[in-house]
């Protein structure tokens, strides 16, 4: 269990107060920290996005979190539902370190369902930061305010999925004011979930095509994660090639175009899901990773 007594208060005079945060407009007067304080001054990347997400956003956020973690980049995020939490889940998968910046006091952390994730992050050597006293409850204006700390702590900000009024866009706004590099993950131009991130690209953000680019920009070396080779059978390869043609496809369509029975397709797809080749979301089959 997490010991809240270990929460430390760092004010602007302290040596631990990160230099990068001191240079921003309206820096927080003090930081309440729980976990490894040295992370505050590390060269880190923020991964943010909206609370509502698509399967695409989920898998990209997790992938980015994991890749950054594997290369030793600390990942800053807001521990909100959706993209924020997936980024940090990816960090835990990649056995890296995460910095969570809260919009409330540490003890009053919300949403409650991400509390376990916060504990896991701290346990894995990460850090939880808040400018508010540990018993202060969140209010609607504390969340936008903490976004300036998210961007302030990081060297780069990656926006994964954001709709046009997402809080992630506020973070991007702060980032550009603070002189941080902003990356945005491009999405389908007709997807409501990617309107914000696509707008950022139009306005000059760097499209994040390969995660390793961002890692190199941060000055880290690329570390290879463990990519396993997966054995696929003939039918599975046929189905994969069919899945590739669509952005999410139902078993009915596959069965129709391959002239197979639906029961067969369902069975094969499930085995592929177990192998981790495809994912199923809302009844549609998606590729889990590029093979």
């Amino acid at each position, binding site marked *: 269990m997490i010991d809240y007594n270990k929460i430390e208060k760092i004010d602007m005079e302290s040596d631990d107060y990160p230099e990068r945060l001191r240079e921003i407009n309206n820096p927080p007067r003090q930081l309440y920290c729980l976990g490894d304080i040295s992370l505050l001054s590390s060269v880190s990347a923020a991964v943010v996005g909206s*609370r*509502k997400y698509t*399967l695409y956003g989920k898998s990209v956020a997790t992938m980015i979190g994991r890749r950054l973690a594997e290369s030793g980049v600390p990942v800053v995020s807001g521990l909100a*539902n*959706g993209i924020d939490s997936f980024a940090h889940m990816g960090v835990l998968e990649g056995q890296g370190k995460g910095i969570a910046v809260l919009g409330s006091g540490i003890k009053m952390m919300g949403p409650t369902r991400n509390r376990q994730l916060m504990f896991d992050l701290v346990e894995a050597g990460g850090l939880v930061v808040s400018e508010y006293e540990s018993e202060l409850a969140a209010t609607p204006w504390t969340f936008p305010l903490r976004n300036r700390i998210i961007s302030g702590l990081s060297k780069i900000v990656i926006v994964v999925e954001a709709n046009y009024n997402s809080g992630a866009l506020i973070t991007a706004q702060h980032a550009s004011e603070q002189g941080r590099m902003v990356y945005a993950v491009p999405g389908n131009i007709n997807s*409501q979930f990617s309107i914000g991130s696509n707008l950022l690209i139009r306005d000059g953000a760097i499209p994040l095509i390969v995660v390793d680019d961002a890692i190199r920009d941060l000055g880290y070396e690329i570390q290879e994660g463990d990519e396993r080779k997966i054995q696929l059978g003939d039918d599975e390869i046929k189905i994969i090639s069919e899945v590739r043609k669509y952005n*999410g496809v*139902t*078993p*009915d369509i596959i*069965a*129709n175009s391959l002239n197979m029975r*639906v*029961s*067969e*397709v*369902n*069975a*094969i*797809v*499930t*085995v592929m*899901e*177990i*192998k*981790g080749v495809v994912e*199923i*979301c*809302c*009844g*549609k089959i998606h590729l889990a990773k590029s093979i």
Partner: protein
Amino acid sequence: MFSKIKSAVCIGIEGKAINVEVDISNGLPNMNIVGLASTSIMEARERIKSAILNSGYEYPRGRITVNLTPADIHKSGSNLDLPMAIAVLTSMQYIDRREIEKYGLIGELSLDGNVLGVEAVLPMLLCMAQDKVENVIIPRANASEAVLVDGINIIPVNSLRECVDVINGRLDTDERSVTLSSYIEEISNPECLDFADIRGQDSAKRAITIAVTGRHGLLMVGSPGCGKTMMAKRIPTIMPKMTTEELVETAIVYSIIGKNNREGTICIDRPFRSPHNSIGRAGLMGGGTQSPIPGEITLAHNGVLFLDEVCEFDRDKIESLRQPIEEKSITHIRNGITYTFPCNFQLVMAANPCKCGYYGDSERMCKCSQNQLLQYRRKMSGPMMDRIDLRIRMEKVSYEEISEIENKGLSSCEMKTAVEKGISFSKSMGRYKSNGDMTDAEIDEYCSLGTEEEALMKNAYSKLSLSPRSYRKTLKVARTIADIDESERIRCEHLAEALSYRVMTSINEET
């Protein structure tokens, strides 16, 4: 002058034989009814008097005492009008005392002497048949349901006078020649619903076939307009034909609520009940203040109970379905009497993927907030998921699929063949219970896996984050798929297919 008539009343769904005794003695003209009679029976004295007078008989000028035996059973309903009137007429010697012993009577009287139809005739007839009553006179309006009763001579009548004439042998009584099979032939109209009406949706049809074969609870998730209700309505068409016992059971239920005579036919197709989500507890489970009447779950007996928009139902109503589903009956207790209604139904539920209905839809945007989504999933994941074995996600059929004329998709006939194949294979293996009803011990016995299959399930358990409950459900469904395949062993492909219908285990999963 004393006389005694055989009749019956209905308590819950069971008929109970009753004797109506009448004695006319000297005294002030009056009619006294004793024997725990309800108001509807007490009021009968006015109907009886007018009916007798208007049929052209004389009404006794004396003290009439009516006794309903056994006297300790609470009796209600209007079906004792006719026996009481006939008992009075027998005491008046309009009817031969020796003849009347061969008859049982059921019917309500109108003031002009006509015999009106009543509810719950079928259970009463069955109980009289058990009591070896030779002839039973019933209202003509109820004649159709009487075909289900064997070993008893049914005489439908229109009026009190006709009834007296029949008993006195002045009318030919040998008019019932309809048998059950010819009757079914006669009213069975060609089924108008067919799965072939639905183009595409093959995976949903496959899942429905499996669900019906094993009597597994089924949940269909999909955006509004993707055809969930259309699918559900066609499920009775692929269920095996009702056996005579099932036919009688269902007809009894409908006889009690008076549905059979109102529609003029007995129900020979499997019932399809689709209660609205605003239904009250008593409406769903059965109930009432005096003697309980069957609710939707009992009306769906031997058929399909379809809960549309299931997330809009109150949680406790879904929760209360648990026991009836397990026991296949529901028990109500009123005034110290236990009433048990059957409710062996195929459960089918439909739900939108989210509150607004368009989460994951390819064309329209979902307008729900993250919290609404979570709340909705929480609603869906709890007691609802415990009631179902299969979950399918349905997608709107594209224009291409609709316009492809050659691919009509599976028809009810093909699906029914698969269902019957599965059921008869399961019976040939000595399993008479539906797979959906298997207990844990039976799952261990009938769903044993080989090494290869074990390995698959082990992998699936961790990779697809199954729960122990969903693991067992998968085994049950796999057993049904193997049955349809007429395979003695559950093989990997059966398990893998069953896994694709697995139920949601956590609210973090997509609907």
